[in-house]
C-alpha cells in the first residue's frame, strides 16, 4: 500500500537543509516558496531515504488571490508519495521555475498549464500553447474567463 507521507515529516527534513523555504505544512501537503522550488525538488529526488524519482502529475488551481501549482511525487522503491505545492500571487504573468531538468515527464503538462491557466515556466525549452491555437485570446481555465 502506498504510504502518503504527511507534510510535517518532510517539512522538518527540508527546513534543516534549506531554512526559510517552507510556507506552510499540513497533513496532506507541503507548500514551498517559489524561489526555493528547484533546490527542494532536487533534494527530494536525490536523497537516499526519500528518492522521489517518479512525478505523478503537475496541475494548477485558480484561487482568486493566488494560483497554486501542485506536484505529486512518488518513490517506486520505497513506495511512498508526497504532494508539494507552490503559490504565485498576482494575476499578471505569474512565473514558476520548470522542473523539466529533473523529471522529463513535466514537458507537456507544463505547456498545458501555460496554455489554459497562463502560468509560464521559466527554463522550459518550448513554452508554447499546446491545445489552443496561437492567437487565441485569454486563458480558459481561469475563473475570470467568460
Amino acid at each position, binding site marked *: 500500500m502506498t504510504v502518503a507521507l504527511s507534510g510535517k515529516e518532510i517539512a522538518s527534513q527540508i527546513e534543516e537543509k534549506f531554512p526559510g523555504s517552507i510556507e506552510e505544512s499540513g497533513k496532506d501537503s507541503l507548500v514551498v516558496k517559489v524561489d526555493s522550488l528547484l533546490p527542494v525538488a532536487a533534494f527530494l529526488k536525490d536523497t537516499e531515504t526519500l528518492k522521489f524519482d517518479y512525478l505523478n502529475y503537475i496541475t494548477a488551481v485558480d484561487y482568486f488571490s493566488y494560483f497554486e501549482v501542485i506536484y505529486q511525487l512518488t518513490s517506486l522503491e520505497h513506495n511512498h508519495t508526497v504532494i508539494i505545492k507552490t503559490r504565485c500571487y498576482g494575476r499578471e504573468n505569474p512565473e514558476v521555475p520548470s522542473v523539466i531538468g529533473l523529471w522529463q515527464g513535466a514537458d507537456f503538462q507544463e505547456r498545458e498549464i501555460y496554455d489554459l491557466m497562463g502560468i509560464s515556466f521559466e527554463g522550459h*525549452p*518550448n513554452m*508554447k*500553447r499546446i*491545445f*489552443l*491555437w*496561437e*492567437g*487565441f485570446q485569454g486563458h*480558459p481555465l481561469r475563473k475570470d*474567463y467568460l
Partner: protein
Amino acid sequence: MEVSRDKEYIYSSTELDRYEGQVIEDLKASSQESIPDPDEWLEGELSRNILLTTVDAIINWGRRSSLWTVSCFPACCAIEIMAIEGPRFDLSRFGMDILRASPRQADLMITAGTLTWKMAPNVRRIYNQMPEPKWVIAMGACGISGGIFRSSYSVVPGYNKIIPVDVYVPGCPPRPEALIHGIRMLQRKIARTPVVPDPLEFLQKGKQE
C-alpha cells in the same frame, strides 16, 4: 528552414504557428451562419422524359452502390465506424469497404466526432479536395449541433457551419444499425438526383445567354 544536426531537440518556429492560428481565427469569424443543406434534388424529378430517367437511373445506381469514404474520424464515433467495418455489421455488402485516407478518390465523407475550431480548416481543406459529386453524412450529436460539448469555448456547433451536410444521423454514438439506415437514406437521395442535363432545357438556356 535551417536545421542543425547537433541541437538536441528541434522545435518549429512560432511564425508557422502564428500563421496557422490566423487561418483558424479567420475561419471562425466567417463561419457564424450555417451553410444551407443541399436540396436541389427535391424539385428535380417531375418533368423529365423516359430516356433521361433511365440514364439517370443507371448512373445513380452506379454511384450509390459503390460509395468510397474518406476517413476523417476525430473522436468516439470512430469506434462505431470500426465496428461497422467489422465482421458483425459488414459495410462491404453495400459496396463501401474502401476506407482510405485519400480524399481524391472518395465521394463520401462521414464526419465521426466533435469538430473543434483548430481542426476546422483541415476538414474544410479535405472537403475541397474531394472531387464532385460528393456527399457528407453528419454522424452523431456532435456532428449535428456540437452535442454534449456545445457550450465549450473551442467546439464548432455542428459541421454545417463549415461544410454542407446531406444526411444527419442522431445518436451519441449512433448504433451501427442507425448509421446503416442513414447510408440507405443517402442512397435513396442519390437515386433521385437528376444527373444528365435535359437537352431541351440546355438549348433554351443557351438561347437565353
